[in-house]
């Protein structure tokens, strides 16, 4: 099983990199670009076969290391 974890800055936390991308897209002539937010995706191969157990494991990984929950939210997808 593989876990795909999407980590994004929380709403309200300034994302200067997203802002820079937003500005660059505008500069390239792309109209109608609203707010841009940048995040990261982490993929993990898991040995665990039980989906519930796997999700719990990945949640613990997110809380312990993968995300900083002061500023980031995470979303786990098992594929």
């Amino acid at each position: 099983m593989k876990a795909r974890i999407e980590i994004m800055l929380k709403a309200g936390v300034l994302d200067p990199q997203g802002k820079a991308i937003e500005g660059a897209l505008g500069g390239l002539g792309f109209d109608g670009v609203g707010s841009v937010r940048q995040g990261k995706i982490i993929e993990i191969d898991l040995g665990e076969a039980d989906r519930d157990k796997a999700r719990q494991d990945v949640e613990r990984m997110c809380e312990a290391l993968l995300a900083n929950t002061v500023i980031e939210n995470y979303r786990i997808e098992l594929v």
Partner: protein
Amino acid sequence: MKSTVIVFPGSNCDRDVKVALEKAAGAKVDMVWHGETTFSATDLIVLPGGFSYGDYLRPGAMAAKSPVMAHVIEQAKAGVPVLGICNGFQILCESGLLPGVLMRNASLNYICRDVHLKVEQTDTPFTGGYQRGQVIRIPVAHHDGNYFADEATLDRLEDEGRVVVRYCSADGSVTAASNLNGSQRNIAGIADGTRRIVGMMPHPERLFEAPLGGDDGRAVFESIAESLAGVSA
């Protein structure tokens, strides 16, 4: 007085801070590699500047989970003073010893230059040698120094007098223009609730004696010597 400097892969100010501790604080300094799980009794722990683990994932995130940090946290909780400079401040936040997080500079630029700081708290082991409100000039060198915490945390830091240094102009005014990296409330350094754990983005060790171009950082190390005088691990 015995100090311990923790060395992570990618630390690059560990030797600078060792020299400053030896010359300005008269300390005996042990350098401890991040892979150690323990170290001998010490009066002070310093987490130095640098780019531990290449800033992978988030600055300080990997270092905060490295083997030596469990012992650092244990010692900090037992009352050993801890100073985190630059990457060390990021590690203290990621380890949970200090609140908040250091985010990418609002300008997205790596900023390496001298800045003015207002010393707001002098009752820490690292700032006792300054006057309250004193303006000092020492360098920053960081890409991720933009201090962020939620409003409740910021209010608590202010109420408890735990904002130790703030970015300011040469005349000491704390303004948006003097906030070089977008930090909430111009915060450059904070203390924990016990005031023994302090993290700061600027580098006092880089201007601790005149031949370096200034000595405004020296009082940090003299404060350490003063506050830990008579204490011996």
